[in-house]
Every structure is written in structure tokens, then in C-alpha cells.
């Protein structure tokens, strides 16, 4: 009998509390979509903010609120997009995975310096003073991009130019927004050919500032229409091209990543020597082909292949 009283007391209080809570949960009911939690689960969870939302949960809410009508998560790529689409019950849109590319090869020995700077420790500050190089579009090499990179994919090597390691890059795009001179571009992951110059100055100015600047000579566009020249600088829009086309560039601005990693192309002396040798070979071949073609009165050599 005596054991019953405490049991009753506890049960009674519990029932009262339970009923009160049930009542109040009606009064203060706030609807919440369970899909938000599912979506958050499906997202990479890097909370990098590259999508424009403040973290993955925010992005999930945005997805739910606009029923998927927001830019895809740049980090998660195709697989995440599929999961998101499954949860939301919408069709999968194709996501192009991208990686960052620093469009500059103007290392210290190639790009002219511009005065000496003191008291400057990062790109944002240096940009206010006009930058350490004569070229105002080139990488300043002070590494702001590297500090924001969540995967430490960007390093400034000895030459004073930041280089992205495509293997580490998750394509979040934070470096692009950080770079004060817009020297970094997101390029499709599969692209093999890159124009490593960002100078939108006219040819004369670019040439005075840097040995490896794009002077918009249009020689590359003649080789392959995937090259386009706009605002005084060339860009490659396709996926790949004949590696030899790159040798057409008089200032060695174009790299084919099947032949040379971007890093080696910019930093390694050896790769440079190899490149020079190959380029000379290519030029010889082209000259020979032209000589061979001339008697036949062919108007044009199609693409420099023998």
C-alpha cells in the first residue's frame, strides 16, 4: 500500500505535465519541414558559404523554400545534386564541376616590379596601392586566396604566383570572391587547356609589364576556334585541343595540362626548358610544312600538323 502513494504521486504529476505540454504544443505549434533536415544530411557539410547562403543548413532551407530553384551546391557536384533532387522530388539538373585557376604565370623574373612596397601583408591591401607588379591584372602573390581556401589547395610558390592544386580544389569559389583583382576563374574540371593571363590592358601596356602576358595577337584563335579573344585577353572555351596548338602562342601563355601541370609550367625550370625545346621543334616542323606547302600553292596550313 505504501508503495502505491509515491507511484501515484509521480504518475499524477507526470500525467499533469504531459497534458499541459500537449496543450501548449497545440497553442505554440510551429510547422517545420522535415525535408530541411534530410537535405542538410545530404549536403557536404563544409559550411563554406560558396552557394551564397550562410552555411549548409541555410542552403537547405533555401532549397525547400524555393523548391530547388537555387544555384546547385558547387562543392557537392553531381552526386549531391542527385540526392537533393531526390529529396525534393524534382528533376536533376546537370552540374558542371569546376575548379579554380589562377590566370597568371607572371613570376617575379617575368613580370616587372613596380616600386617596392612596405607595410603590406596581403593582396587586399596591396591592391589599394596598385599592386607590387607593373601588371595590374596579374597575381600579386600575397596569398589571400590561400588563406580562405578550406582545403589548402592554393599555394604561393617561389615565383610569387599562386597556383591551385586541382586535386585538392573542391570548387567552392571562395578564392574567386577573395581575389581583389579577379585573377582567379572557375573552370570546368575537365578542361585541359588554360590561358594563363588575365591582363585586359592593350598589347603595348601588357608587353611592357610582363614577358608572359597575353597580347591578344589572335594566333591561337586561328589554330582552334575554341580560343576566343575578348577585352584584350584570350580564353579557351572548349575542353581540349591538340597540344601543339599551344605552341602557337608567341608569349608562352597557354598551357596544355596533358603535357605540363600548371604548377610545373609556371615554376619548374626543367619544364620550361622542355617546353622551349618542344616549341622550337614545333616551329621547325611548321616552317618545313610551310616550305613544303608553298610549291603546291596551298593557301593555308591546316593546323600545323605535318
Amino acid at each position, binding site marked *: 500500500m505504501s508503495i502505491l*502513494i*509515491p507511484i501515484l*504521486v*509521480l504518475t499524477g*504529476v*507526470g500525467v499533469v*505535465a*504531459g497534458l*499541459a*505540454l500537449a496543450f*501548449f*504544443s497545440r*497553442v*505554440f*505549434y*510551429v510547422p517545420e519541414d522535415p525535408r530541411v533536415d534530410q537535405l542538410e544530411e545530404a549536403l557536404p557539410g563544409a559550411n563554406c558559404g560558396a552557394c551564397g547562403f550562410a552555411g549548409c543548413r541555410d542552403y537547405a532551407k533555401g532549397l525547400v523554400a524555393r523548391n530547388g530553384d537555387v544555384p546547385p551546391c558547387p562543392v557537392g557536384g553531381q552526386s549531391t545534386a542527385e540526392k537533393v533532387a531526390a529529396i525534393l522530388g524534382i528533376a536533376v539538373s546537370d552540374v558542371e564541376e569546376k575548379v579554380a585557376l589562377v590566370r597568371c604565370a607572371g613570376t617575379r623574373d617575368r613580370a616587372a616590379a613596380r616600386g617596392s612596397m612596405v607595410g603590406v601583408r596581403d593582396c587586399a591591401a596591396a591592391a589599394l596601392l596598385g599592386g607590387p607588379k607593373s601588371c595590374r591584372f596579374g597575381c600579386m602573390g600575397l596569398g589571400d586566396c590561400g588563406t580562405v581556401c578550406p582545403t589548402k589547395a592554393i599555394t604561393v610558390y617561389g615565383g610569387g604566383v599562386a597556383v591551385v592544386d586541382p586535386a585538392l580544389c573542391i570548387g567552392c569559389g571562395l578564392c574567386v570572391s577573395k581575389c581583389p583583382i579577379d585573377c582567379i576563374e572557375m573552370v570546368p574540371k575537365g578542361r585541359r587547356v588554360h590561358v594563363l593571363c588575365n591582363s585586359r590592358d592593350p598589347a603595348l601596356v601588357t608587353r611592357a609589364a610582363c614577358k608572359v602576358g597575353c597580347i591578344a595577337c589572335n594566333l591561337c584563335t586561328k589554330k582552334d576556334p575554341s580560343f576566343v579573344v575578348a577585352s584584350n585577353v584570350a580564353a579557351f572555351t572548349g575542353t581540349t585541343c591538340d597540344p601543339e596548338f599551344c605552341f602557337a602562342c608567341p608569349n608562352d601563355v597557354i598551357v596544355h595540362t596533358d603535357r605540363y601541370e600548371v604548377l610545373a609550367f609556371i615554376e619548374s625550370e626543367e619544364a620550361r626548358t622542355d617546353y622551349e625545346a618542344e616549341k622550337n621543334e614545333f616551329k621547325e616542323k611548321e616552317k618545313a610544312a610551310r616550305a613544303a606547302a608553298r610549291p603546291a600553292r596551298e593557301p593555308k596550313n591546316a593546323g600545323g600538323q605535318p
Partner: protein
Amino acid sequence: MELLLLAINAMLIGNLILSKFLGICPFLGVSRRLSTALGMSMAVLFVMVLASTVTWTLFYTLLRPLHLEYLRTILFILVIASLVQLVEMVMQKLSPALYEALGIYLPLITTNCAILGVAIDSIDKGYDFLHMIVYAFFGAVGFALALLLFAGIRERLETADMPKSFQGAASSLIVAGILSLAFMGFSGLVPG
């Protein structure tokens, strides 16, 4: 005068966080921003006064007459848990931003030992209803004071070049330790 002394005692000398070391979880958890610390303080203030009132009443109307004093811990926990659920619902409805900011720490008030501590303490010390209210209220104010001071310091430490190993909880605990040292100065201020 006696109530004033009790208030000072509850707020400063016997500060829940800094001299009784109760409620450390929210103290470390929601002290990163002043605004959330303020919200947490308010929630704790509300729950603490309410919980103390309810538990005190239950104790003296139900347990004492039935000689079930030994049930108080489990009963108090039950009551506090329900109250926290209630606060959570109210807050989610009325202030979603604060609800988001407090996050997991809001339900954790349930296990905030400060609440249970105050409820049991006021029984142990044999306070009457008025003293119990004053004790709970100023105990919560002391909790809020410590939390706000701490949040201010942590906001300031955001700009500090702390060594990696001390960032976060490590330095927070050291700050809490020093604060606690400083609160030792109040010892002996009020006898009892």
C-alpha cells in the same frame, strides 16, 4: 535587509557559476555572443523562478505531507524537464531567431544543474516562499551576470591571436577560472 543580504549572497558570493560551479554547460556553450547570452539568461531566469516555485509548492504540499521527501530529486527533474519543453515551444513561436541561436542549449537547460541546484538548495536551506523566490530570482541574475561578463570577454577574445591549443574551450575555462578567482573577493561579505 535580510532579503537584500540574501539577494547579494545569491547573486555574488554564492554565484551559481563562479562559486558553486553549477550550470557550466550553457556558460561555455552560449557565451560566444552577447545577444544569445542575454537570451539564454532570460530563459534561465524564467525557468529558474518558475521551476523553483513549482517544486517548492509541490514539495510542501505534496511530498512533505505524504512523507515522500526522498522523491524530490526525481520529481523535480520531471517538473523542470516539462517546463523547459514549454519554454522551448514558446520561444520557437515567439522568437525563432533566438531559438535558432540557442540551438541545442535550450533543451539542455533541462539538465542545467543550476536549476535543480537552486530548487533543492532552497528546500535544503528551509527558505519560506518569499525567500525562495528571492533566492531563485537573484541566483538567476547572478547566472546572467556571469554569463554576460563572460560573453563580453569572449567576444573580445575573438580578435586575439591565441595559440591554437588554447582556442575555444581551453581559454574559456581559464577565463572562467580567473573570473572565479575575482569572485572569491566577495567571500565573507555576508555571513552564511
